């Protein structure tokens, strides 16, 4: 069990996502920076489906009620255990009673706390990913008790760590592919999509990132059809919306681009005011 002493800004339990219910309109959810989440699970020898805590900008304060091992990946938090700094991207042993603090992220936006075995919160429709209307709890609250899966590996594995490439947090470039409605755009707008540097709006969230700088462009609405995380939509009034993990499953705006998975992970680490630029690439076979 882990007790939440204070909640931070927005922390939620996420895993690889909720698949098989998109035809009922249920979003897939899951870790925004799936790359960082997977890294934490690997450091702990967890299955890649193991649930983690996704932490946004200002982290929570947590008290461990049992021994385990943790790994913190993603954004540049400066975590401490009992007020002693611990490294990111490293497996750390935890004793009963230890207090973990995250502080403020110096770079990036989303951090991942993995625990050995994974969090054991409620499973709904095959996933622990928290989402309003699906799971009872949708974000961390002060006083919550988070169950963790017990693991017989505690104490048996030596340390593990990896070096994180800063490119993941500061590269402007977002690799993407042409979307279903790309060819309907006039040639000069197609070009503009690659040449224009865009700014991330502070209104961005787990549902969608809003990018400003394409106000000169616009696209007609389409007959509603499926959308997925990573879909870049352009509205008739020139708003550029990048759908993220909690996005709805269908939509009526033109789907002009589709981000690569890696670009989605990188965009998840961008904050309001950051700059990004699309680079259109050919799809791999």
């Amino acid at each position, binding site marked *: 069990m882990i007790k939440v002493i204070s909640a931070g800004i927005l922390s939620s339990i996420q895993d690889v996502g909720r698949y098989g*219910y998109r035809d009922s309109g249920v979003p897939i959810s899951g870790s925004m920076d799936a790359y960082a989440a997977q890294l934490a699970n690997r450091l702990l020898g967890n299955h890649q489906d193991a649930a983690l805590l996704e932490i946004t900008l200002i982290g929570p304060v947590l008290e461990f009620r049992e021994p385990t091992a943790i790994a913190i990946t993603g954004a540049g938090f400066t975590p401490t255990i009992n007020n002693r700094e611990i490294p990111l991207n490293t497996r750390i042993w935890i004793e009963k009673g230890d207090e973990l603090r995250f502080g403020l992220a110096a770079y990036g936006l989303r951090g991942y706390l993995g625990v050995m075995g994974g969090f054991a919160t409620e499973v709904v429709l095959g996933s622990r990913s928290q989402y309003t*209307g699906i799971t009872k709890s949708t974000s961390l609250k002060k006083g919550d008790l988070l169950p963790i899966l017990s693991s017989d590996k505690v104490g048996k594995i030596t340390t593990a760590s990896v070096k994180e490439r800063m490119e993941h947090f500061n590269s402007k470039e977002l690799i993407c592919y042409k979307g279903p409605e790309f060819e309907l755009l006039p040639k000069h707008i197609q070009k503009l999509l690659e040449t224009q540097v865009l700014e991330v709006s502070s209104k961005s969230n787990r549902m969608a990132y809003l990018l400003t700088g394409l106000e000169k462009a616009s696209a007609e609405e389409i*007959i*509603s059809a499926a959308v*997925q995380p990573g879909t870049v939509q352009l509205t008739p009034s020139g708003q550029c919306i990048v759908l993220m993990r909690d996005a*709805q*499953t*269908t939509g009526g705006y033109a789907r002009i681009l589709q981000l690569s998975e890696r670009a989605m992970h990188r965009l998840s680490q961008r904050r309001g005011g950051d700059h990004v630029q699309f680079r259109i690439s050919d799809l791999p076979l």
Partner: protein
Amino acid sequence: MKTAPLYIRYGEHAALVRWEAVIDPMIHHEVLRLRHFISEKFSEEIIETVPAYHELALYFKPNVSVSEVLKKIKRGYKIYSEHPSEVNFNVKIPVCYDEKFALDMERVVTHTGLSKAEIIAKHTETTYKVYFLGFLPGFPYLGGLDTHLATPRLESPREYIEKGAVAIGGNQTGIYPSASPGGWNIIGQTPLQMFDLQGSQITILRSGDFVQFVAISAQEFIWIEEKVASNSYIIEKEVRHD
């Protein structure tokens, strides 16, 4: 009428199969037919499919070659002649059009020039086709609204619409399965749980079903609501033979 669809890649692990961009029951029939074919033959390669009006989205497992599988689907579908008899239902949805629920009835009266009784009569006499679900978990995109009932959306959307609200937005009608913001004209409310995680299936409606609204009184609304809460309400539905 049966034109060959286009196969379009949609990012690293997805593709779309697209027919002519119109809202048409025949085209939607093809969307569901392909969906059936894929669920029978390609469950190893494809996680799930999402139908819409004129498109089927295919979501592939991560280690599958999308272009290879698309070729196989295309080849197979060309010679696939079955018209599988999917079990579709006619579902009766009770709706209370009482003024305590019908927040925008006056707007619809003013816009359509019809009386409240005429609006209710027209709204309940149509059988609506469920094209697909989306927007919110359990939200049905229904086709077939009587053109006389079409009413433009509110100029500024409401921040809160009650779960179960039945509304008209432009030339569409729908049911809000959960409380949400929204800009449609609310003309009534159903006591049914359109999206229910505890139910044997999580949504009452599926793509391909048909809906008929049945007007109920405020008293019946309370009665059904209680039955729904105690899991003893039996939804009126019958198998369609078409």
